[in-house]
C-alpha cells in the first residue's frame, strides 16, 4: 500500500533496507571469481582461435557484467522493475543497431554501393602492410588553427577543394569494385 510506503524514510534506513547482509568475505569471493574470469578473457585470444576469442572475450564480458550488476549493485535483491527498465534501455539500443546496421555495416546493398569504403579499406590495408611507420594515415597532423575563415564566394565553386581532394589523399587510381 502506498500509505504504508509513505512512512518517512529516515536518512539511514534506505541503505540496506532489503536484502541479506553478507559478511565482507562474501564480496571478496565474488571479486576473486571476477579476477579468474578476467584472466580467462585475456588468455582466450592467445589460443588464436577466432570463435574461442569471441566467446572468451564477449561471453565472459557479459558474465562479468551480470555478476557485478547482480552482486555488487545488489540488483539480485532489487525490485524486478529495475531489471526491466535497464533491460528496456538495452533493447532500445539493440533496436537502433538493427535498424542502422543494414546501411552502416555493409559495403553494398540493394541498388547502392559504397565506393569510398572499398577505397578506404584498401588504403587502410596498404598503410598497415607498409611497415611500422604508418606514413599513409598516421601522418595527418591535427591543424585546427587552419580552420577556414573564407568569405562567401571563395569556396563557392567546387574547384577549390575539388582539385586538392584527389592529391591530398594520394588516392590510388584503382577503380573500386562497382559496376558501371
Amino acid at each position, binding site marked *: 500500500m502506498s500509505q504504508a510506503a509513505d512512512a518517512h524514510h529516515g536518512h539511514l534506513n534506505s541503505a540496506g533496507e532489503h536484502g541479506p547482509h553478507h559478511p565482507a568475505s562474501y564480496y571478496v569471493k565474488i571479486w576473486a571469481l571476477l579476477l579468474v574470469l578476467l584472466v580467462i578473457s585475456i588468455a582466450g585470444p592467445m589460443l588464436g582461435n577466432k570463435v574461442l576469442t569471441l566467446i572468451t572475450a564477449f561471453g565472459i564480458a557479459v558474465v562479468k557484467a551480470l555478476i557485478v550488476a547482480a552482486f555488487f549493485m545488489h540488483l539480485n535483491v532489487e525490485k524486478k522493475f529495475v531489471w526491466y527498465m535497464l533491460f528496456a534501455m538495452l533493447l532500445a539500443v539493440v533496436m537502433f543497431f538493427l*535498424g542502422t546496421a*543494414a546501411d552502416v555495416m555493409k559495403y553494398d546493398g540493394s541498388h547502392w554501393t559504397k565506393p569510398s*569504403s572499398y*577505397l578506404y579499406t584498401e588504403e587502410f590495408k596498404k598503410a598497415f602492410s607498409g611497415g611500422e611507420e604508418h606514413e599513409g594515415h598516421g601522418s595527418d597532423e591535427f591543424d585546427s588553427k587552419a580552420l577556414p575563415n573564407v568569405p*562567401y564566394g571563395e569556396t563557392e565553386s567546387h574547384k577549390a577543394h575539388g582539385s586538392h581532394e584527389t592529391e591530398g589523399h594520394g588516392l590510388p587510381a584503382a577503380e573500386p569494385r562497382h559496376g558501371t
Partner: protein
Amino acid sequence: MTTHVAADHAHSEGDHGHHELSFIQKYVFSTDHKVIGLQYFMTGVLMGVLGALASYVFRMQMAFPGHAVPGFGLVTPQIYNQMVTNHGTIMIFWFAMPVLIAAFGNYLIPLMIGCDDMVFPRLNRLSYQIFLFSALLLIASFFVPNGGFGGAWTSYPPLASNPIYNQTPYGAPMWLAAVALEFVAFLLGGINFITTLMNARAPGMKMYDIPMVVWMIVIASILFMASVGPLVAGAAMLFFDQTLGTGFFDPARGGDPLLWEHLFWFFGHPEVYVVLLPAMGIVAEVLTVFARKKLFAYRTVLWTAVATGVLSFFVWAHHQFVAGIDPRMANIFTVTTLLISVPITEMSFVYIGTLYGASIQLSTPMLFAIAFIVEFLIGGVTGIFLGASGADIYFHDTYFVLAHFHYTFVPIAVIAVFAGVYYWFPKMFGRYMNDTWGRIHFWGTAVPFNGIFIPLFYTGMAGDHRRTFNHLNFPDLARGDLIFWREFSTVSLLIMLAFQVIFFVNFFYSMFRGKKAPANPWNANTFEWVAASPPPHGNFVTLPHCYRGPYEYSVPGRSSDFWPQNEPAPKT
C-alpha cells in the same frame, strides 16, 4: 491514514518556516518547483518569440524574395539558412520542450500528485541553469564570425561536420554544444520528473488515479531518456568531427553520413511523441473540466500513450526513405509507421468520445483544447502520406512535409500550450485572464494558422522543396498560383503573429490587474486546485490524501458536479 497527513503537515510547517528570502533567492536561485516552472516557461516563451521572429524574416523572404524585410533588412542566403535552421532548433528544443515538459511538468507534477516539491529541488535548479546556459550559447552563436549554423536542424554531416562545407567554423560547434547541453538539462529534469511521480505521490494515489497530464509528461520524459542517448554520443562524435577533424561521418575516412541520420532520427522520431504526449495530457485536463465529464476510458488513453511511445522506437527511418538507406528496410519501416496510426487514432477517438453526452462550456481554454483536436487530426492524417514509402518518394522534403509537421507541432506547442496557460493561469497568479480578449486571441490564432499551412500543402504538392532561399530561381516554381499562395501564407503568418500581441498584453495585464480568482475557479477535481492560488512555498497547508480518480465529474447522486480527489467518500 490521518496520522500520515498530520505528520506531513507537521513537517511542512517545520521545514518551510516563513523566513524572508531576498528577491534573488526567491526568483533567480529558487529551488521551488513553481518558480523553476515559471522560469522555464518565461525562457521558453522568450525563445519562442525569437523563433517566431525568425519565421517572420524567412516567410517574408519566401513571399517577396529580393525585397528588404521591414525591420530586418535584406535576407542573404546565409542569413536565410541561419534563420531556417535556428527557427527549427529553437521551436523544438527551446520552446516546445521547455514549455510543454519542463514548465508544465515542474509546475504541475508536485501540485497534481499532492506533494510539496520535486524530489530533487537542487537538481531541478541545476537543470534549469544548464538549460538557460544552452539558450544563451545558442543565441551567442549568431554573433560569432561567419554567423550561426545554417545546415538545417537535422544538421546532416558532412555539411555540418566540415567548416569548408558549411562556412560556419564557430557557429556550427556552438550550435551543437548548445543542443547537447539542452539534452543534459532535460535528462536531469526527466530523471527528476520520473522519480517524483514514482515515489512522491500522495498517499492513496494509485496508478489510475494520476492525472493524465502528469502521466503524459512522465511517459514523455522516459521516451526522451531512452531515445536521446545515441544522439548524445553522436553529438560528441560530430563535435569531434567539427573541431578536431576526426572522420566519424566522413566517408573518405571510413565514416558514414547515414550513421548520423540514424542517430539523429532514432531520437528525432520519439521526440515528436515527447512533445505530443504532454499536449495530449493538457488537453485531457481541460476537456474534462469544461465538459464536466469523466475522461472516456482512462486506461485506454494511458495504454495507447504507452503503446505510441514503444512503437515510436521502431519507426524512425521513415524520415530517411529516400535518404540512401537500403530500400528493403523502407518496407519494414512503412509497416511500423502505419501501425502507429492505431494507438493515435484510438487516442483521438477517445477524446472525441469524451465529449459525448457532455455539458460543454466553451471557455477560452476549452476553445483551444477543441481546436487542438481539430487541427491535430489534420496533422495526423497528412502524416500517413509521409509514412507510406511510395507516396513519400514524392513528398519527401517538400513543403507538404513542412505543412504536415507544423499541423502537428503548432497544435502541440502553441494551441495546447495556450489551452494550458489560460486554464492554469488562475492557479499560477491568483487572477483570471480576460476571457473576451482570450476569445479574440483564440480566433486570431486558430484561423490564420490554417491560412498559413493549408496553402503550403498545396505548394508542396506542386513541388516546392524545403529550405530554398528563393523559389523563383526555379522556373517551374515561378508559377503565378504558387506565388500567390506563398504570399497568402505569409500574410496569414503576419496576422497570426499580430494577434499574439493581444495574448502578451492580456497575460501581463492580468498578472497584476486581472480579476481575483478563488482557489478552485473551474470546479476541477485535481489536487492543484486544493492549494491556494497562487500556491505558497510548500504548496499545501495539509498535504492531501487521494481517494479517487481525477475525472469524477457529474457523478450521479451527488449535488455538485465535481468530486475532488482529496474529498473523502461520505460514510455510508
